[in-house]
């Protein structure tokens, strides 16, 4: 116990000045797990040995405070087990889904996914379609007052998730919204106006001023974009008025290798012509960033919180288990 106390005390002090990823790396080392395991076993044994004392207290004098102490320390056991389950089984995957795009958990639809763990062979399969994404901003600043997404599931049910209100799909799995961006739909046309290619491209072009690019498989060009969600022309210059997607415009810059093929600001169905081709962006939608998280430890930890809180409150009932100060000569009596 003393060795564990010193070890974890040292780690705790060191962790307070270290970035989180360093602390998480420490939790993967053998000494951490050996001491942790011994503490877990020690806690379990102590709780087991304490049971007869608890039974005696409750049957003879109904000392609910004694039960409170017991429950509070049981809660530590729940927390410790929950923490282990999280380390061994937590999985998180990130998805960018555009409004109207069905997400079906195909491997190519994930932007990122955490590595498989001992108790988590893969990201849980989930299917949904984004019906609407609603961001709202305060004045003209990059402060969201609302960011939510309406989702439809294959069963026909719908639900809304917000940036701090996840959807629970099972006791250990939830879906949360963590960001959004713009998805322009491009149309590439030839000289005769025939559409050669058209698709939505999810780009990192939020907030306005952020620049991203995309390429097309059969063409050597690179297309750089910035999106102005609410453009107005002031003295011949396009100016962005707000962050709301009202009158969107695309600032396009085309390259072929090192050759600069020019740039333009395109509003609505306006097209840019280059090397016998025309490119336009008739539509811009939102994409939402969603995280699918499976954490088998979370329900256990939260149960531990409840048990611990009940224990603490029970401790307030009944007589205090220690000496009280006696007035007069300043002596205390047991």
């Amino acid at each position, binding site marked *: 116990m003393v060795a564990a106390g010193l070890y974890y005390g040292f780690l*705790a002090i060191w962790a307070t000045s270290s970035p989180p990823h360093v602390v998480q790396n420490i939790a993967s080392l053998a000494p951490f797990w050996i001491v942790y395991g011994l503490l877990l076993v020690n806690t379990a044994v102590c709780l087991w040995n304490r049971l007869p004392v608890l039974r005696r207290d409750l049957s003879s004098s109904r000392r609910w405070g004694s039960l409170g102490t017991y429950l509070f320390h049981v809660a530590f056991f729940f927390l410790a087990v929950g923490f282990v389950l999280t380390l061994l089984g*937590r999985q998180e995957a990130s998805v960018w889904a555009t409004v109207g795009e069905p997400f079906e958990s195909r491997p190519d639809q994930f932007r990122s996914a955490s590595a498989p763990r001992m108790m988590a062979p893969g990201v849980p399969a989930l299917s949904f379609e984004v019906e609407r994404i609603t961001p709202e901003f305060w004045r003209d600043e990059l402060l969201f*007052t609302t960011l939510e997404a309406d989702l439809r599931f294959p069963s026909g049910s719908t639900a809304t998730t917000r940036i701090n209100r*996840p959807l629970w799909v099972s006791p250990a799995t939830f879906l949360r919204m963590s960001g959004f961006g713009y998805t322009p739909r491009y149309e590439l046309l030839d000289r005769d106006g025939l559409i050669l290619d058209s698709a939505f491209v999810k780009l990192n072009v939020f907030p306005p001023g952020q620049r991203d690019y995309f390429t097309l498989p059969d063409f050597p060009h690179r297309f750089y974009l910035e999106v102005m969600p609410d453009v107005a022309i002031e003295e011949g210059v396009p100016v962005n008025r707000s962050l709301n997607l009202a009158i969107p415009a695309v600032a396009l810059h085309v390259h072929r290798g090192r050759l600069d093929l020019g740039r333009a600001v395109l509003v609505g169905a306006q097209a840019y012509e280059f090397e016998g081709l025309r490119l336009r962006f008739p539509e811009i939608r939102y994409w939402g960033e969603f995280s699918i998280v499976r954490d088998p430890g979370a329900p256990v930890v939260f149960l531990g*919180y409840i048990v611990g809180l009940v224990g*603490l*409150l029970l401790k307030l009932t009944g007589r205090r288990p*220690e000496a009280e*100060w006696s007035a007069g000569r300043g002596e205390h009596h047991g």
Partner: protein
Amino acid sequence: MGEWFSVAFWACMTIYAVVVAAQIFGQVFNKPRWVERATYGVAGGLALHTVLVAWRWIETGHVPTIGNFENGLVGGWFIVVMTLWAGWKQRYPLLAAGALPFALIIMGGGAMSDTSARPMVASLQSFWLYIHIFFAWLAYGAYTVSCGAAVVYLTKSGKNKSADGEVLGRLDELMFRSVVFGFITDAIMIASGSIWAKNLWGSYWSWDPVETWSLLSWLIYGLALHLRITMGWRGRKLAWLLAFAIVGVLVSFWGVNLVMEGSLHVFNVG
């Protein structure tokens, strides 16, 4: 903050500072009436402080919880309320001299940061935010009272001091009870913050420095309770522990974001 708000804010700070100075003066130069009358100053300062909190609330349209300034303003209010209650209830007005400096520190520190009104952003629109912050203020207020009581205990007791046993007994009891109160509310704060973190960041514990420090300070106060209940620590031993335990609270609330970058626990938004 607006001009009149600024005037009222600094007037409130001045009242608290004068109260602390008056109580210290009364204690050092053995003028108990200065100590007792300064308590009325605390009440007056608190009345003005309450007006400031309500003013800010109306101005922003939400509970003042965003940013170091608002957290300092409301956190300081809780500290003063609990100090006034404890001092009045325990008939020990000198408590303000030990506890009010912390209110001055967090309010002053908040005033040095961005004081402009900010909306309740989407990430903070959560039921759990209000629970988390409310119990944080209760906990930190209680810990501050325990620290203040500890400081007063240490100044009143000692080898060459003929302290009244009853007075020391009440202070000892106040230290213990305020730590118990703070420990329970701190536990609720940590749990509710963890649930909110799971909703907002996808993980109930990220080993963020603020999270780690708040857990560490909670464990220190848990240790203090253990030492009191099972080992019989009381009086000066407990007072010394509680006088220094407040450091963990100050660091987790304030120090981490001053010294480190990259904490997810950013009190200022925008």
